């Protein structure tokens, strides 16, 4: 329970409701347990032929108690189960809040699927413990005390006989539950193997067909299918066992009570009514007994889930606001709130992990505000890393990066990032309206700004053709934009952020050269006096930049203007020549 203890603050938030819930659950159990008592009295009444009218009284009492119990049961569920849903909600909010502040690095080592599973399955497991777990534990406890004390009031010896199998039943339920869980996990595991196999076969269908391997593939799939079936049957063995064994044990105690009780009646030690009550009480106890084992499993699962969740809650991001800022956020930020856009890299050496090689080696760059700088290089030359460092998606350990002469680690993270407009290499748009995507940077925006940004990024004409224009939904349920349209939307989004520093990382790869030029011209106007960094593998994107840096293997290999670099006859000139040839070929 060490990890589940972390839920205490959440429970405290709903203290009043929970206490109410526990009170009504007690009341509900009291009334439920009174019903067999009434029935026993009624049967004895019948047996002794005393008072015919009293039967009405007992019948009405039964219904009355059931109504009371029902009302309290309703309140119980409306308090305890509802609270568990509220806590689930709170926990999930806190979880995501914790996840999104993690460093970019975190997401490299934790795939999205893993985080999703935590947010859904694991939090659900915890909620199951909080709701049904707490409710049934309490209910079981009260039912036990109530039923057993009432039974004791009838006959001590018979009570003892009746409750002997109870611990045994709970234990069996617990063991079976555990075994089912284990087998179930094996089934799940085999299921995912089967899925992987199908996935692989169908992805490689071309090879399968080309080599006429359908039969042996079927053979392989059959093996997996059979293994899966076997695991399922193993699970079925335990599962089929669980129901009969439980009712065998409970049925057994009923028969024992009937025998012992019957003999007591014969010896005039017990009345028939009391025996009936015993039988009904045993029926009432069956579910709590079974649920006891189930609750233990539930708790164990919740504990395991909470442990996994705790790992995320305990993982503190390294990249954050400067310490001074955290304490006194206004004082510092006011004085440096206007970023001009000078950028300087001083002796930057960077690698993603200490086991990996350096991605950037001894990089020194100075960019003045208002400059447009192009970066060219092959895949893996360090271009994207270079710009990711500016927005502090990763922090450098060796060397420093300065903006307006101040180390970027001294800025508030929010402030630094909102002054940068970034168009990443892999276009990522949200499945919302085009308008919401373009206006992502602003909390409240006016339509004119969206239109203006769309016009500069040359997406306006496309949007205009859509039936719903800017309200067009993107993604799964909406329109699928072409690669170029996506890129241009992503550019519009960065433009609307009104950044002091604009970074375009291979942002034109799916845009034709003519449109590219139009966008670049538009950008030049709005970025005048501000800094622009263009990354590309295409010379046409970069050739009008004030300065071009050629990266090779993480180091700066060449630097200069388009003209000077062409004259140098180096990497840049080579790439340029090849691209000219490509253009020629296309026109043939």
């Amino acid at each position, binding site marked *: 329970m060490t990890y589940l203890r972390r839920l205490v603050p959440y429970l405290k938030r709903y203290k009043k409701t929970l206490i109410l819930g526990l009170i009504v659950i007690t009341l509900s159990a009291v009334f439920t347990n009174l019903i067999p008592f009434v029935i026993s009295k009624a049967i004895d009444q019948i047996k002794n032929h005393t008072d015919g009218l009293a039967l009405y009284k007992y019948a009405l009492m039964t219904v009355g108690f059931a109504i009371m119990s029902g009302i309290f049961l309703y309140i119980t569920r409306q308090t305890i189960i509802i609270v568990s849903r509220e806590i689930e909600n709170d926990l999930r909010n806190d979880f995501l809040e914790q996840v999104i502040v993690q460093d970019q690095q975190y997401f490299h080592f934790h795939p999205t699927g893993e985080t999703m599973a935590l947010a859904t399955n694991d939090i659900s497991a915890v909620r199951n413990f909080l709701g049904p777990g707490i409710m049934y534990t309490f209910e079981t406890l009260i039912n036990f005390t109530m039923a057993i004390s009432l039974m004791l009031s009838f006959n001590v010896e018979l009570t003892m006989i009746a409750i002997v199998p109870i611990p045994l039943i709970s234990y069996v339920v617990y063991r079976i539950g555990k075994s089912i869980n284990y087998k179930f996990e094996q089934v799940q595991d085999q299921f995912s193997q089967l899925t992987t196999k199908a996935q692989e076969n169908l992805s490689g269908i071309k090879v399968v067909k080309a*080599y006429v391997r359908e039969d042996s593939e079927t053979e392989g799939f059959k093996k997996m299918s059979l293994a899966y079936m076997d695991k399922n049957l193993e699970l*079925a063995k335990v599962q089929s066992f669980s129901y009969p064994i439980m009712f065998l044990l409970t*049925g057994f105690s009923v028969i024992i009570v009937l025998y012992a009780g019957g003999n007591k009646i014969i010896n005039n030690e017990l009345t028939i009514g009391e025996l009936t009550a015993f039988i009904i009480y045993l029926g009432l106890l069956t579910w709590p007994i079974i649920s006891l084992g189930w609750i233990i499993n539930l708790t164990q699962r919740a504990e395991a889930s909470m442990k996994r969740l705790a790992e995320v809650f305990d993982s503190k991001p390294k990249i954050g606001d400067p310490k001074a800022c955290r304490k006194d956020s206004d004082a510092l930020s006011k004085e440096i709130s206007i970023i001009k856009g000078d950028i300087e890299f001083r002796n930057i050496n960077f690698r993603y992990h200490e086991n990996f090689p350096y991605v950037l080696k001894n990089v020194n760059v100075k960019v003045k505000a208002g400059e447009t700088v192009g970066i060219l290089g092959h895949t893996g030359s360090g271009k994207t890393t270079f710009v990711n460092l500016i927005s502090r998606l990763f922090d450098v350990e060796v060397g420093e990066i300065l903006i307006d002469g101040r180390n970027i680690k001294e800025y508030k993270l929010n402030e630094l990032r909102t002054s940068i407009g970034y168009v990443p290499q892999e276009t990522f748009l949200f499945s919302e309206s085009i308008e919401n995507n373009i206006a992502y940077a602003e909390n409240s925006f006016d339509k004119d700004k969206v239109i203006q940004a769309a016009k500069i990024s040359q997406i306006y004409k496309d949007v205009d053709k859509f039936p719903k224009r800017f309200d067009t939904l993107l993604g799964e349920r909406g329109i699928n934009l*072409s690669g170029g349209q996506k890129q241009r939307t992503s550019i519009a989004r960065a433009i609307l952020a009104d950044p002091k520093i604009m970074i375009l990382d291979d942002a034109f790869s*799916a845009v034709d050269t003519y449109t590219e030029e139009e966008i670049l011209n538009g950008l030049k106007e709005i970025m005048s006096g501000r800094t622009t960094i263009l990354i590309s593998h295409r010379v046409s994107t970069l050739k009008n930049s004030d300065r071009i840096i050629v990266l090779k293997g993480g180091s700066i290999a060449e630097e200069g203007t388009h003209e000077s670099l062409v004259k140098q006859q180096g990497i840049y000139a080579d790439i340029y020549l090849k691209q000219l040839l490509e253009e020629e070929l296309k026109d043939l």
Partner: protein
Amino acid sequence: MAEEKKINTSEPDENEQEEIIGKAYDARLMKRLIRYLKPYMKWVIIAIMLTVGVALLSTIRPYLTKIAIDNYIVNKDSNGLRNIILILLGTLIFQGLLQYSMTYLTQWIGQKTIFDLRMELFEHIQKLSMGFFDRNPVGRLVTRLTNDIEVLNEMFSSGIVMVFADIFIIGGILFFMFSLSWQLTLIALSVVIPLIYATIVFRRKVRVAFRDVRFFLAKMNAFLQEHISGIMIVKIFAKEKKTMDDFKKINYDHTKANKKSVYYYSIFFPIVELIGAISGALIIWYGGGKAMEGVLTIGILISFIQYSEMFFRPIRDLSEKYNIMQTAMASSERIFKLLDRKAVIADPEKPIELNDCKGIIEFKNVWFAYVKDDYVLKNISFKINQGEKVAFVGATGAGKSSLMNLLCRFYDIQKGELTVDGINIKDLRQHDLRKNIGLVVQDIFLFSDSIANNISLNNREIPESRIKEAASIIGIDHFISKLPLGYGQNVKERGVTLSQGERQLITFARALAYDPKILILDEATSSVDTHSEIMIQNAIDKLMEGRTSIIIAHRLSTIQKCDKIIVMHKGEIRETGTHQELLELGGIYSKLYQLQYKESFA
């Protein structure tokens, strides 16, 4: 790079809504499903017989209790009591055994049936033509093979037989109750009608509530998925707060939907208990009165209390089964739809045998389009003689790979004729044709299996010696032997990372092990280190020896060794000749040559 202007709004091939809420019973589908039970009919009948036994044994016990009370306890006969107790114990144990056999048997039948169905579906999918795979994402097909079939398992194992069980139990209870006292039965069970009504209302409400829950859950998952995989955008635009605000709303919508279903449950459960209590009250009031008059016995009253409790569970269960059937129908509809799909490229009815293939290939005025009228190959004609080596060169999208796909008959051509050894390939069995072709494609595909199996592709006709021979001719025998598990090494296991070049060479060894008459080689463009480069070059030479070879060439040395070079441009053959001839021509080839093959002068 021209920008794709059109917006893809057309419906994909098999765009069905994943969650169809349809009928719970569809005679046409059911009939077809039942067919899968046929091989196990004997066992199905046994299972049904077992359920009859279980129903009888479980419903007889309250009756025996009645006898114990009325005949022995009331008459103070302790010997008789002991005997009836032993009978009770016997029925209990016997019921336990039957119940276990029944549950396991139904599970077994379900597993067997869906295994057959899964295999049938798998074999069927494999037979479908390549065009089908272009239009249908792998993920969707996998879902049919796994999740959809899984839903049917539930129907086969806990649906059909359990419905019988519930019905038999209800029947058994009614039988005993009526035989004890029909008046009391009618009075005690008068509450069943409101119970059924309450259950139906509850099911309906809860189904709607659950649909909302699923809707918001899907929305929440989509949001999480999107914002976690797009976390970089969130960070770059410093939108952590907005993300949280949006999420809180969606999360609470989900919670609200759940609360709604909690609400229905918190009303339904007390109502069920109340109805049970009313039934008990009715038994005491009416039955008690009759018992005082001496018409009924105490034992009957007690057994009635037990029967009425037993009666409610199967009724509640039956509505649960309804849901299982409903989803099963939707899944089986999707599965059968896929099973009914015919392979577009079928084998001829009277195939011509391709004995002793020589490897003479001819394209005669071939036109081909993946999408109607959008021709990627236009009027292509060429002939390749036995043992000839021909290279195809051209820019991306020139139609080179399409040529290879046609030769393997992954697609059918629209116009013209394609022959192998003078026989139209449409007159051959696809298997016979492909057995003579060794295809090495550019996207290297290795199965997560051992290296040996990746070379032989689990073909038992290829002995280990041949695998090793192929590997050593290609020149990777040495490297494989150095791996911890040698040829048994799994290529996708952690810790063993094969370089792109090594992976490529494994696919070469694969082609060589199959010893095809015709070799089709799409050389990889990916940069490999110098060492691998030389190895690959040598391997290609070995591979081409004595075979008709068609190569989509990316390496100069390969091209120079070819008998003929065919230059493709925009779906047409533009130039044909040897390396020298084409260079002298000064056309497309000479430009391509400068672009792709000439050493970088950096």
